[in-house]
């Protein structure tokens, strides 16, 4: 099935309580699939087409604040519209899953795949000091798997999770193994606004605190959560890094292509390896730093003008030369041109 359809089906099977969305290419199949599949008959899941991405993310806020598993999806321009809501969700410490099937930008840009929303996804995106947990799938299988994983992390940390994917993975068809149907939750978190019963104090979901000292305390609490994420939830994969002299760093679609580039490079006698961050926040700083001590050069490959490369440079602390190779505007790089880029940057 298509990556977008896999996300939709995975949401039903993860026991999601609701999806709120608004159509935008290249991710409309998620809403279309859910409407056609009638999950209210299968699990009781609510699916609603909102009047805008802004309304959709605020519906996510309302549902998440009731302690429910709520998911939304969009693509770059729509994700920009959701930033206000994401900031409120992060500031109210609500769990949810947000899928960004990235297309090229800025502005209306193109409907073709890109990875140009990295900064927005991993640095916060909206106003205020906050982070999303960002998962980067590289296959239709991971598109499906990361929905359930996303809910698990979102509820464990009371934090919004973004699945940062792109138009190529959204539209790509692959075989996918789907998990068995999980039942929807029947017991909700104790902070949820489910109606104040006499045995407890009222629950209030808000991100407002006019007392500066309290607001600072809350900011420090959020930062502690993010440090805990960095200590415990970093996920990454590596390919042929044991003896690598040149390291490619890439996520999502770019990582998929780089796997082929590693093989092509090795056929040419270039000892290449690949580190693929699976979580973009928290970023795999430690494994990168360790590899930086062993390799002669690092090439960050992204479908952007170079965003993740900044985090790679921060992680390696100047220990080794770090370069960037990217295509923009919806163009996907070929494995060959990435091998050429290794040569041009490091083998002159």
């Amino acid at each position: 099935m298509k990556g977008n359809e896999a996300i939709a089906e995975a949401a039903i099977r993860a026991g999601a309580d609701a999806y709120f969305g608004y159509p935008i290419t290249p991710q409309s199949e998620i809403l279309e699939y859910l409407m056609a599949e009638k999950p209210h008959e299968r699990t009781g899941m609510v699916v609603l087409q909102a009047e805008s991405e802004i309304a959709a993310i605020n519906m996510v806020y309302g549902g998440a604040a009731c302690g429910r598993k709520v998911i939304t999806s969009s693509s770059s321009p729509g994700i920009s519209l959701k930033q206000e809501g994401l900031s409120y969700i992060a500031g109210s410490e609500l769990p949810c899953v947000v899928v960004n099937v990235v297309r090229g930008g800025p502005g209306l840009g193109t409907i073709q795949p890109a990875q140009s929303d990295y900064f927005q996804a991993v640095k916060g995106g909206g106003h205020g000091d906050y982070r999303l947990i960002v998962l980067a799938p590289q296959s239709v299988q991971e598109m499906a798997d990361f929905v359930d994983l996303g809910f698990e992390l979102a509820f464990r940390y009371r934090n919004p999770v973004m699945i940062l994917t792109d138009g190529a993975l959204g539209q790509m068809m692959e075989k996918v193994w789907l998990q068995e149907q999980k039942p929807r939750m029947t017991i909700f978190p104790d902070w949820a606004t489910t109606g104040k019963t006499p045995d407890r104090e009222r629950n209030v979901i808000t991100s407002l605190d006019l007392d500066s000292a309290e607001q600072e305390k809350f900011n420090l609490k959020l930062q502690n959560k993010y440090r805990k994420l960095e200590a415990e939830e970093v996920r990454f994969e590596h390919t042929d890094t044991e003896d690598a002299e040149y390291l490619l760093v890439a996520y999502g679609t770019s990582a998929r292509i780089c796997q082929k580039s590693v093989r092509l490079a090795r056929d040419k006698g270039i000892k290449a390896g690949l580190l693929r961050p699976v979580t973009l926040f928290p970023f795999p700083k430690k494994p990168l730093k360790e590899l930086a001590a062993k390799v002669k050069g690092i090439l960050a490959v992204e479908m952007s003008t170079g965003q993740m490369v900044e985090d790679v440079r921060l992680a390696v602390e100047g220990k080794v030369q770090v370069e960037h190779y990217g295509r923009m505007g919806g163009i996907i790089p070929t494995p060959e041109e990435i091998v050429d880029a290794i040569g041009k940057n490091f083998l002159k």
Partner: protein
Amino acid sequence: MAENTGIKDVVRDENLVYKKTSVLTDKVMHYCPGCGHGTAHRLIAEVIEEMEIQSGTIGVTPVGCAVLMYNYLDIDMQEAAHGRAPAVATAIKRLMPDKYVFTYQGDGDLAAIGTAETIHACNRGENIAIFFINNGIYGMTGGQMAPTTLLGMKSSTSPYGRDVHMMGNPLKMTELVAQLPGTWYVTRQAVHTPASVRKAKKAIRQAFENQKLKKGLSLVEIVSNCNSGWKMSPVDSNKWMAENMFPFYPPGDIKLEGKLVGKE
């Protein structure tokens, strides 16, 4: 010889004719003395107590003067982003259809930044109640022009009075949403006299009761004063409201049981 009755002898449970509802907390309200918000809050709290739906009610507060409403009502509440309360309430009601869900919004929140969310929640016929406080001004940010500011009315961003050519006309959102098939009950009330308070309470109760019917959205507008923003005494502001606001925003029912009042 008559007994000597002191105040302590009078204040007894059996003599009580009125007391503060248990759904209001003891937190001192931050509203300016004379403002209508406190009365509107009390009426909502009283209705919740009388209907015995404290555990069955979720409220959504706006951005504006009523942003801290969750400090005053002893129910589960969510604080929405500016204008987004109807979207937030939509999700709560869809996920918990047996709960009573309401939003409480000012004119800037409901009729400017949240116009789309308001119209679409009304048009979908969400089974929620919207309580719309219209005082024709942005109170919390210091008295700027609102979508409902009257023509000629002065504010900090219309210091020479609202000029139709430059700033457009005041928006009658209540009449506008009454046209939509998704609204079941639309009314305009006030809380400036004992008689209007009693009527407003009935309307609020109706908006809660309607949620049992699942026939659509109920919107209760409460035309209110903002004595600080209008730079008047509380008494003068209520007089000014009746003389100037009511001709443009006339109190009364606009839509009953899904039918526009005065139309077939």
